[in-house]
């Protein structure tokens, strides 16, 4: 059915609402990539099977991710007239049990993360109260999901529908207000006014650079050409970032609606989505979403029956990080090798096929319907002076609650790490957080000697004795840049004392050296030389002067590279040298890796006092380096269990694979 007007849209919305809130039990399983990696596929299968066996009148639905990736598989249970129950860490066994409980009308509280009392759709503005008087009695102790620390400080604009809809069904999006903004824009707005409104909103690109979106749109609209191309950058090459993947897998329609609105404002006639090949699920969902848009007349000729026509094609990337760069991306779209070109030719005027082209990131596009639907004034009321709205981050690394979050700009990094992420893992010390992708900086340091303490009230771990440091920096484009890092696309990677900063710098540089397109000499050769130096340092062969040489080379590469890959590549070594110089020095002068990461500088051993003789290490060792022995005279072995032998490691045979370290549950295997 092709939608022609508001009445059609309303009808689909009513249908969608019936699907979102049916008259029977609905079991919703998060099956985005993170869910699948945690085993959601088997959970879905189990529900389908058990429901069949029990002849339970229930629907099993698949959705995206609500952000708590670490606690996947996540299952939400909808029961008509009652609160939604959200369960975490599901397994087929737990799923079977839950289905049986549901058949008896009494779902258990085990593994309940929380319950949802009311659901508000940002764009339709409609709020639905789910459970009267707080829902069913046995679950009254499950907290309000919005109130648990992970969610309390979040504000979802781009992720407004993720985890709440079936991304494969356009009716679900429409039920939450999707495509209404597009209708309003196409029927009530002039293109110029659309560009004006985006400019007024202060929206800045979420792909890394933070370029004002309105200004980009204006230059593109004003540029002369036969065609105007609208492009979505869904390459997401940053290792450690998965915001775009989550959005595409959880709610492709919000991004598509943004692109269509953008096309109308800019005067675009053709659209492209450049999505990375490593995201097969995102590609499948986008493909499905485009089909549905065609079916409903939201893409193609005469959208909503108006004069406006626009269409979108998906292009799969070939797995080259540099293709995320705008000019390289366009070259790749043209079927060429993805080499960046000089920026003095602006892509907004001479981009794809030499035509005016407007390229924005997935998250940027997903913000557009919200800005247009709720107005620039609403948008500017959120965020800071120079950075409006929210930013999506993937909060990962050695933090207690990892996942995908969306927070208003201006929130401090400390709030994100401690209040939302719950601080570093139990028993560990916070060391650094890395922002801005491989070419961003590693910032926030100075926790040497800081202890981790438990806050009794919440049970959350926070980092104590925090000196005056960068942790209180507000998250916004400008302050992060000032601190020597950058917002980047939104990966926040937390590291504790088990991460070696020299190794991390080497990791990023090696990545960038491999991904350099090789067009300019300083980037191609300079990065490789820096990797060689870092390799030497990590192998214990560092020499006096290496640090200075790294700094010098880094500055040359940054100053003389053509594109931003080389232009920011030295950030990781430079910022780690700046803040962790002593770690570099320990490697070079003491031949010691304080974090116990660099293989050449560590040895595994067994702490006799802690060893129970359980033998797990022996089983794990691939090279028979672990052997058993009787305690030596005078050796204290308080934990050694009766009838067992102590275990030890033969340094000759050990290949330092770490399997024994991983296997020992008594912390008896130690790195020296």
């Amino acid at each position, binding site marked *: 059915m092709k939608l022609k007007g508001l009445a059609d849209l309303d009808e689909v919305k009513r249908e969608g609402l019936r699907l979102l809130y049916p008259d029977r039990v609905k079991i919703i399983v998060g099956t985005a*990539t*993170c869910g*699948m*990696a*945690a085993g959601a596929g088997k959970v879905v299968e189990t529900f389908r099977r058990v429901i069949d066996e029990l002849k339970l009148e229930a629907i099993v639905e698949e959705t995206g991710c609500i952000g708590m*990736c*670490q606690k*996947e598989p996540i299952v939400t249970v909808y029961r008509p007239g009652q609160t939604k129950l959200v369960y975490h860490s599901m397994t087929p066994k737990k799923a079977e049990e839950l289905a049986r409980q549901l058949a008896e009308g009494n779902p258990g509280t085990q593994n309940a993360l929380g319950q949802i009392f009311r659901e508000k759709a940002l764009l339709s503005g409609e709020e639905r109260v789910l459970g009267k008087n707080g829902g069913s009695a046995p679950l009254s102790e499950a907290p309000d999901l919005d109130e648990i620390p992970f969610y309390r400080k979040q504000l979802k604009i781009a992720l407004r529908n993720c985890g709440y809809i079936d991304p494969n069904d356009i009716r679900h999006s429409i039920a939450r207000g999707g495509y209404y903004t597009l209708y309003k824009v196409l029927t009530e707005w002039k293109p110029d006014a659309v560009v004006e409104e985006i400019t007024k909103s202060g929206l800045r690109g979420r792909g890394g650079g933070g370029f004002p979106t309105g200004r980009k749109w204006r230059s593109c609209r004003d540029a002369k050409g036969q065609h105007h191309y609208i492009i979505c950058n869904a390459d*997401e*090459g*940053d*290792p*450690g*970032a*998965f915001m775009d*993947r*989550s959005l595409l897998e959880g709610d492709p329609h919000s991004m598509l609606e943004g692109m269509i609105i953008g096309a109308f404002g800019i005067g675009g006639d053709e659209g492209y989505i450049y999505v990375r*090949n*490593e*995201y097969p699920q995102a590609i499948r969902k986008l493909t499905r979403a485009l089909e549905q848009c065609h079916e409903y007349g939201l893409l193609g000729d005469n959208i909503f029956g108006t004069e406006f026509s626009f269409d979108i094609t998906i*292009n*799969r*990337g*070939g*797995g*080259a*990080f540099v293709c995320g760069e705008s000019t390289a991306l366009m070259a*790749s*779209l*043209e*079927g060429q*090798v*993805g080499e960046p070109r000089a920026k003095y030719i602006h892509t907004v005027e001479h981009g794809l096929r030499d035509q005016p082209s407007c390229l924005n990131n997935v998250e940027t596009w997903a913000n557009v319907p919200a800005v247009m639907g709720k107005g620039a004034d609403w948008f500017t009321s959120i965020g800071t002076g120079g950075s409006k709205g929210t930013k999506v981050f*993937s909060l*990962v*690394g*050695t933090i207690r609650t*990892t*996942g*995908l979050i969306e927070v208003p700009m201006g929130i401090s990094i400390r709030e994100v790490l401690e209040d939302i992420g719950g601080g570093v893992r139990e028993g560990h010390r916070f060391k650094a957080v*890395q922002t801005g992708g*491989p070419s961003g900086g590693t910032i926030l340091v100075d926790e040497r000697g800081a202890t981790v303490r438990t806050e009794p009230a919440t049970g959350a771990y926070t980092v104590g004795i925090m000196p005056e440091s960068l942790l209180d920096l507000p998250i916004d484009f400008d302050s992060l840049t000032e601190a020597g890092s950058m917002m980047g696309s939104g*990966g926040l*990677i937390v*590291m504790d004392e*088990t*991460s070696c900063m020299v190794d*991390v710098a080497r*990791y*990023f540089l090696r*990545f960038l050296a491999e*991904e350099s*397109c090789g067009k300019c000499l300083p980037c191609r050769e300079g990065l490789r030389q820096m990797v060689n130096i870092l390799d030497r340092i990590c192998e214990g062969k560092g020499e006096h002067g290496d640090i200075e040489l790294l700094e010098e080379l880094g500055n040359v590469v940054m100053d003389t590279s053509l594109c931003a890959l080389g232009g920011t590549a030295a950030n990781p070594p430079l910022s780690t040298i700046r803040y962790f110089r002593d770690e570099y020095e320990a490697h070079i002068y003491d031949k010691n890796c304080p974090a116990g990461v660099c293989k050449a500088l560590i040895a595994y051993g067994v702490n006799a006092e802690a060893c129970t003789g359980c033998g797990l290490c022996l089983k*794990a060792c*691939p090279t028979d380096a672990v052997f058993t022995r009787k305690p030596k005279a005078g050796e204290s072995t308080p934990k050694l269990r009766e009838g067992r032998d102590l275990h030890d490691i033969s340094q000759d045979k050990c290949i330092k*694979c*770490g*399997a024994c370290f*991983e*296997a020992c549950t008594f912390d008896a295997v130690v790195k020296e």
Partner: protein
Amino acid sequence: MATEAALKTDIDLAPAEALIAAYMDNREATIALLQDVQKHYGYLPRPVLELISERLNLPHTQLFALATFYRAFSLKPRGRHLINVCTGTTCHVRGAPMLLEAIERECKCKAGGTTADGRFTIETVNCVGACALAPVIVIDEEAHGRLTQAKLKKVLDQYK
């Protein structure tokens, strides 16, 4: 050159012809065509590249430039199952390098190579976007999260 001749006779070019036909008028879509070829054959066989070059009137060098620039392409045949070890930042700090070595030991094959029995090809990928479950490996599009060396063998055993 005996091996090359053998390769040539091994490859059924009919599917390639059909794939090329779909892109006949669109030279921009060479990457998409190569992706389709890669999907069908599991890699980019040389005779197919030659065929594309001939049919689309493209220089060899251009096709090889594309085939070697983009990670998604392989010029060598791959095993029955493709193991992609995620080496993204989070996986890295959570032990991916040691996991990769364990896989290499278990399969007796280095990253980039294929096991002697053709069962696995081992490759690395920069990030699969499932960082919260690091370290992650992907086998034939199926992701396995929170992997440890101890669990590795059981996971690999699922793929024959």
